[in-house]
């Protein structure tokens, strides 16, 4: 190991600890929603461990409840996760030289929280070694991962026992809205979100969830074009 003073792993763990406050209840909500939708414990936990991406998991469950064909369920949920390709790209300058299995390990743990926090830290400390950076990002996930798994487990066990009056049908929409509202921080984001809503509602009658996919593609284009226009005006 290098001769750097404080351990990057523990520094990552310390920096990642506050995320637990969001991750635990969020994981629990997924456990509740998946169980309510009819997934058994093994299925709920497998999804949470294999996918480890809340928004996509909620999207998959929502599409499956809606009786969309498997292909559309996958397309919609993976579309939600495409942002992670961007995280993957931002890690290349920092971790591109790590061994293949370490890059694979980091890729599994590249969630919203770890990707955003790690890229901030790496930007501030570009001179740190590859080993330091790998240890840091794994450190972030030390508190996050168990609370994500554990939250889901707790929600799945408790969820089936909650009474109808809890209006659990609306846990998913509220979670989606709470996730997305803070992300709409620029005019292009707002334009994309409004396009998505309008078209999804207009095309709601389209079969197999195709309306949503069309709405999403149009929204992507509107977001990117709005950004491009705004940049043009600035220059």
């Amino acid at each position, binding site marked *: 190991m290098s001769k750097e003073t404080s351990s990057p792993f523990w520094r990552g763990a310390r920096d990642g600890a506050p995320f637990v*406050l*969001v991750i635990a209840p*969020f994981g629990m909500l997924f456990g509740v929603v998946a169980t309510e939708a*009819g*997934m058994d414990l093994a*299925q709920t936990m*497998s*999804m949470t461990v*294999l*996918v480890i991406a809340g*928004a996509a*998991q909620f*999207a998959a*469950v*929502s599409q*499956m*409840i809606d009786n969309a064909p*498997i292909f559309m*369920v*996958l397309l919609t*949920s993976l579309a*939600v*996760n*495409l942002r*992670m*390709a*961007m995280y*993957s*790209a931002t*890690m*290349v300058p920092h*971790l591109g030289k790590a061994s293949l299995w370490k*890059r*694979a390990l980091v*890729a*599994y743990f590249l969630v919203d929280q770890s990707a955003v926090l790690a890229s901030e830290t790496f930007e501030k400390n570009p001179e740190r070694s590859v080993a330091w950076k790998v240890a840091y990002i794994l450190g972030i996930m030390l508190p996050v991962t168990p609370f994500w798994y554990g939250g889901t487990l707790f929600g799945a066990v408790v969820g089936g026992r909650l009474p109808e009056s809890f*209006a659990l*049908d*609306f846990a998913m*929409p*509220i979670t*989606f*809205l*709470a996730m*997305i*509202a*803070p*992300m709409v921080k620029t005019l292009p984001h707002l334009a*994309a979100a409004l*396009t998505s*809503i309008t078209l*999804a*509602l207009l095309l*709601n009658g389209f079969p197999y969830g195709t309306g*949503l996919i069309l*709405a999403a593609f149009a*929204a*992507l284009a509107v977001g*990117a074009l709005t950004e*491009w226009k705004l940049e043009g005006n600035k220059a």
Partner: protein
Amino acid sequence: MIQLSDAQLWLVIVLLGAGTFLIRFSFLGIIGDRPMPRWVLRALRYTPVAVIPGLVAPLVLWPAATDGDPDPARLTAAAVTIAVGAITKNVLAAIIVGAVTLFGMLWLLG
């Protein structure tokens, strides 16, 4: 309720896991630092706001729990959740205030 068979549901779980991993591994493991067109990276940034609002809008306007009729309690809860999320940028706060609003409205409207 999900209508898929057990085997189909497992297929979704495994493929979603594999697909998500491949997305995360894409640049780090496969593409590396080969240059990508700027519009690709630009578009990736908008994927969550392009998909999730469209996914959630029909659930908010036409909830299954009320047989697709717009429901004042759910609409109010949705509006409050968006407002709290947009102002505080705090996901958890938005979920909690949204849930409290929903229960409060359901109780008020009986």
